[in-house]
């Protein structure tokens, strides 16, 4: 399940840590595995990461379940995580979440029937000055979201 390219990327991460500390690369390895498995971590991916890093499977599973940007169930092609924490909420975070729910016709932790979009509620992303803020597929931060910008974003993602 882990491609040769993914293993190469993981090797680069392992090299950052002292000899004998491969386990330190587990967060990156899970991230890399998730990126090439449609945005989530099937059990086999966790097992492969464990084997590759010579860790007990349960230790990798613990990490995968502890950090909330890892997904243990399938998600849509585009995962959108909206921050609704207090600083964002004061500048429209909740309104943005409502707008997305209405546009996509789904609630939090749901995926559109065509499998394109999953909506999540997120905790503080450390970008409160850019409120309302959302993340696309964990890595792309979108700042100062308005209904117009959301329309543009969704249209652009729709075609991808």
């Amino acid at each position: 399940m882990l491609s040769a390219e993914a293993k190469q990327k993981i090797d680069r991460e392992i090299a950052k840590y002292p000899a004998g500390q491969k386990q330190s690369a587990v967060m990156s390895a899970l991230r890399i595995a998730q990126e090439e498995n449609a945005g989530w971590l099937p059990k086999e991916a966790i097992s492969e990461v464990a084997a590759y890093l010579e860790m007990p499977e349960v230790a990798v599973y613990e990490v995968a379940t502890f950090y909330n940007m890892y997904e243990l169930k399938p998600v849509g092609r585009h995962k959108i995580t909206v921050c609704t924490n207090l600083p964002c909420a004061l500048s429209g975070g909740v309104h943005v979440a409502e707008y997305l729910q209405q546009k996509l016709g789904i609630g939090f932790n749901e995926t559109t029937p065509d499998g394109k979009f999953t909506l999540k509620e997120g905790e503080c992303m450390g970008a409160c000055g850019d409120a309302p803020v959302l993340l696309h597929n964990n890595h792309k931060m979108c700042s100062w979201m308005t209904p117009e910008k959301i329309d543009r974003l969704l249209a652009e993602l729709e075609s991808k």
Partner: protein
Amino acid sequence: MSLRPLILANTNGDAGWRLEHYLARGGYSALKKVIAGKVSPEDLIAEMKASVLRGRGGAGFPTGLKWSFMPKGEGEKYLCCNSDEGEPGTFKDRDILRYNPHAVIEGMTIAAWATGATRGYNYIHGEIFELYERFEEALQEARNAGLLGARILGSDFSFELFAHHGYGAYVCGEETALLESIEGKKGQPRFKPPFPANCGLYGKPTTINNTETFASVPFIINMGGQAYLDLGKPNNGGTKLFSISGHVNRPGVYELEMGTPFAELLELAGGVRGGRKLKAVIPGGSSAPVLPAEIIMDCTMDYDSLSAAGSMLGSGAVIVMDETVCMVKALERLSYFYHEESCGQCTPCREGSGWLYRIVHRIENGQGREEDLELLESVAGNIMGRTVCALGDAAAMPVRGFLKHFQSEFAWHIEHKGCLVPLDVQRAGSQIYVSPSC
């Protein structure tokens, strides 16, 4: 006005983060000075102590003193930078990593010289992944220029530095949870003692400082500890980056002299949005007790003034709330956050944070009971001081702060089974707002 950019001076947004730009701003001159002058670690630490730089992550511990705890002698020692910025309201380290990542690299390298650290990691909040990638690029630039890695600037001093990303766990901002996380485990805080200076990353001596703390180091070395201290006020040295969010016209990061009056910061941020009335301010990140308008307007922004007012400077994250805010609803959201982010290790925090949320939630939803305010105090009191790390206290302190200053609003909720601030007013006040300057 006391706008005094140091770390963010002349940084030119996204166009000025690369090594060439940093060098043009005088970057790496402090490191060159230290290496060429063979400044002794003792003298370097003395300079840091003279600056009275206090940890910018929230706890405010004196940096020079922290460095002095590292054992002398040879052997593996580590340096970690805490860029796991996830305390609601805080977004200053993100700007440092965006606009001036080399200041962090230079600061860490100088700290390695002072503490004897051989290897370092910058732990970067997973949600700002793009800046993790940028930091990796900056590291490569520094290595290519001989400013990092083996035999720095041709000397016999070596220091390896790498980036490590988080992936969505607020608790990893706690320094020992951060170490666990780098070791590839769940980020559950360690019991202290032993302290990281004796037993840290991989069981070796380790110093952990915040991003802004490290980024301040080159400026302190260049201008001298005393001059840096003089920028602020006694016991509260230097400049500070304030993240200001919520109901202001121009939210963002402002770098000011420590001790600047809150009123000036508010004015710099364009004042309260829509000309509405200021109701309350959380001055130091969501864990800091909230202060009502009449108290915060008399405060200066530094450790001592905010502590005397019953709150704290924390990370310098200022959350501004105007008269349209329902204080119960505001606390409900914060309590949910701590409940969600409790790592589950200590019973008082794991269970107590859930109780706090559920009680505030039922008050907000018209199902509050007469005894609930006392119950909230009791649950908060039974968390505080009874957990391995400060997350438990961080869940309890906002509850106590909100009850201390806005008890009548909570009581009104319970009695009338609804909000004191009409719902349409709340909704209008929390509309999507994007500053014209964005």
